């Protein structure tokens, strides 16, 4: 899909927010001087072409209840795949990345409570014999990140 100037403006504008009103698309379309149905059709096309991965509310997972923790392990190369399998088998492991460092496996634990974070980390340590370092967030900094379209 080739994006035209209007598509790019829509992508840039809609990263900043979308109104909670009766006819929100009509309201935003007006800013671009295009009809409501054109805006909707463009969003549909960009979603279809996977230029847009998601359009909707972004929730603060922690505010909804639950505990999260970034964890890391230093896994010997020859055991890497076997350890990945053991770690990923836990439903509490939300995502897991191989990274370039001595600490080469980084994953996020998502559980109902703080206590379960510690319990899951401990279980993974027992199953793999490798220490699980825990890096809970102490402070989150406000972000201005936008993907320039």
């Amino acid at each position: 899909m080739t994006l035209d100037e209007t598509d790019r403006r829509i992508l840039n504008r809609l990263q900043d927010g979308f109104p909670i009103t009766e006819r929100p698309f009509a309201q935003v379309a007006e800013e671009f001087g295009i009809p409501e149905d054109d805006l909707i059709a463009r969003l549909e096309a960009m979603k279809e072409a996977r230029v847009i991965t998601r359009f909707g509310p972004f929730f603060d997972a922690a505010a909804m209840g639950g505990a999260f923790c970034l964890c890391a392990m230093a896994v010997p190369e020859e055991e890497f795949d076997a350890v990945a399998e053991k770690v990923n088998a836990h439903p509490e492991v939300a995502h897991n990345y191989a990274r370039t460092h001595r600490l080469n496996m980084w994953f996020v634990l998502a559980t109902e409570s703080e206590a379960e974070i510690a319990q899951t980390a401990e279980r993974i340590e027992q199953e793999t014999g490798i220490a699980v370092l825990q890096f809970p967030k102490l402070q989150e900094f406000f972000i201005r990140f936008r993907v320039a379209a």
Partner: protein
Amino acid sequence: MKLDTIDRSIITATQSGLPLVPQPYAQIATDLGLDEAELRARMQAMQESGIIRRIAVAPNHYKLGMTANGMSVWDVEDARIAELGQQVGNLDFVSHCYERPRALPDWPYNLFAMIHGSSRDEVETLRSEIAALLGDACRGGDILYSTRILKKSGLRLRQQKG
């Protein structure tokens, strides 16, 4: 803000996105058997309390040419991390920025900033911008590139217990 069952049903109904129809909130309200005005008021309240961070488009970084990213990590003086962490968060190429505990002696870093760019070279250039910004409040840094996604499952709202 305390979420009730109705708020949770709204979260569940909108987690995968808003419908692309002229009146998306009316449609969700109908699906949930709610009044549209009430649904919008509840979403507004969730947005004001920060449960909804924002309603927005998430563009696909890769399709827009942002194909490289790296987790940069820094050992920043504790006394200055609040101020400097916020300055790093304000950089438009940083998508996540957190203070996290060090794990000494293995891990001296307490500031994590995810950098996005169009190439590994660009990410390295942006990383040196952060180093310059942190200046002598920073005792060292590193960058970790992801080589493989081993697991990726969306964060789902869990069932509320009693």
